């Protein structure tokens, strides 16, 4: 059974803002990346999963229970880091952790302290009002982990952290994943998603435009090779071969060829008849994949 299920979720705020027919499922132990720029509908979807807002149509479930109207039950297993963390006034970091621990029925605060140690936040006893963005974020992360929840819903969790700390946080996520936690990670930091997620959905203007396994990006069945020739005219000569060209550039005397893994031997055989300066694999990154869906945005917004 899926741990988090979003079923045909629609919430229309007008002016094409909101979410429209969003559906996805996250299975036990899976890390699901939710990728999209600000205003694409990531946070709106998350608010539904936490039971903060009522869908116009469609439903969201956590552990098979509808979240709207049952959030006090479904949130028990959830650790949540909001996109923009705001804490109650006049409280110290430690006060907040203690208070939320009490509200969550946590037996002790060991987990929270562990996270604070890992993120190297030393003065959690300071008033949150005087804390920097990064420090607040660390408190927020500790709050999300304090009751050792089975599900983590993280809305841009590493915003405000310096690059070093972002790496530490990624490591923390990997550990959680190893413990079998189910994680929804909303982010626009590609490296973070690339390193942790099993599956990714890209959301654009409130609709999911594609979803895929990270394996398809990391270990695609297709490979693309860039070939640069050392002898003039070679690019024109090879263009006559029966190959799948991703790019032919006569000016620079080079081509990009996409082949199935099984065809690599054949490609090498063909290439042996040409004068080659270098051969390199062009790896598909998540960012490139993402840009395929977003690069058209300026020209009318169609996918």
């Amino acid at each position, binding site marked *: 059974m899926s741990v988090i299920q979003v079923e045909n979720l629609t919430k229309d705020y007008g002016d094409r803002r909101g979410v429209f027919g969003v559906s996805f499922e996250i299975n036990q132990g899976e890390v699901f990346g939710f990728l999209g720029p600000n205003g694409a509908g990531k946070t709106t979807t998350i608010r539904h999963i*936490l039971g903060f807002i009522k869908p116009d149509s469609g439903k969201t479930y956590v552990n098979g229970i509808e979240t709207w109207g049952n*959030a006090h039950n479904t949130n028990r297993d959830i650790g949540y880091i*909001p996109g923009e963390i705001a804490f109650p006034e006049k409280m110290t970091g430690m006060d907040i952790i203690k208070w*939320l621990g009490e509200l*969550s029925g946590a037996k002790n605060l060991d987990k929270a302290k562990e996270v604070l140690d890992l993120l190297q936040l030393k003065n959690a006893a300071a008033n949150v009002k005087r804390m920097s963005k990064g420090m607040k974020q660390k408190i927020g992360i500790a709050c999300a982990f304090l009751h050792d929840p089975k599900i983590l819903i993280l809305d841009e969790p590493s915003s405000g952290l310096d690059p070093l700390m972002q790496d530490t946080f990624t490591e923390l996520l990997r550990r959680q994943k190893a413990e079998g936690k189910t994680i929804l990670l909303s982010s626009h930091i590609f490296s973070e998603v690339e390193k942790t997620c099993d599956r990714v959905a890209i959301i654009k203007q409130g609709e999911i435009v594609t979803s895929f396994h990270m394996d398809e990006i990391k270990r695609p069945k297709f490979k693309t090779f860039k070939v640069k020739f050392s002898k003039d005219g070679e690019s024109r000569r090879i263009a006559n071969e029966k190959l799948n060209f991703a790019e032919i550039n006569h000016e620079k005397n080079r081509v990009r060829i996409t082949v199935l893994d099984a065809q690599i031997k054949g490609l090498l055989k063909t290439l042996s008849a040409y004068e080659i300066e270098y051969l390199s694999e062009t790896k598909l990154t998540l960012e490139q994949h993402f840009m395929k869906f977003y690069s058209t945005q300026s020209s009318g917004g169609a996918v």
Partner: protein
Amino acid sequence: MFSKPLFKKTIKDNYKLWLGITAALTVMLVLLLVMTNSVINNPDIGGRPNGGGGGGMSINLVLEQFYTMFAMLLGMIYVIITANKLIAAQIDNGSMAVLMSRPVKRNQVSVTQAVYLFGSIAAMFSVVMGVGLAVIGATGLNIAIGGFMLLNLGIVLFFLSISGISFLASCLFNVSSKSLLMGAGIPVLFFLFNMLAGFSGMAEFMELFKYLSLNTLFSVSDIMAYSTNLIWQFIILFAVGAGCYTAGIWYFKKKDLPL
């Protein structure tokens, strides 16, 4: 229906204003009663022991001044600020997200905050009443104990209705400015209409204003005279208060929280 951790935090967040207003009201009442007592017992300005009419000073007039001016104004300040802070301000600044993402029911949150708001008002006037009774006992002022206690019950019922309106406003709106527009605007209008109604001696139509204000339902002279009007006056104040609190709790349960 109630969250102890939330209640503890709410007390911590709001007790300072409560203490300040309660202390101010208590000090004012003590001063007024002691001054009245000394005027009444001072034969130089024509006071008669226990006569109540010394120097034109009527004890009922003093109580009227205290309850319809000081208690109403300071109480309103407390209610307006606190009601907004309890719900709407926490949605406005987003800090309610850390609370609502925990295993708490919407009703638990709203009922806990409502209990604090009304409970703190009841506690405020219990303190005022307790100190007032002590001063009356010590000075031997000629004030009917029953009437004085009824006066405090009346002001608590009055603030049940006023705080109900402010609480409802806090539940209805997600931004403080809107919550305050209703939650402060209506009580302030009531207060002003009540003052305008006081000019009914000058022009008859001014009396119409008394029907536009809940404040007229708290009448010191009616209470001290044990008027039968009290019954429906108190019933209306209670009904408005209970209705507004219930509506606020109901609406908070079903509304979208933009957290």
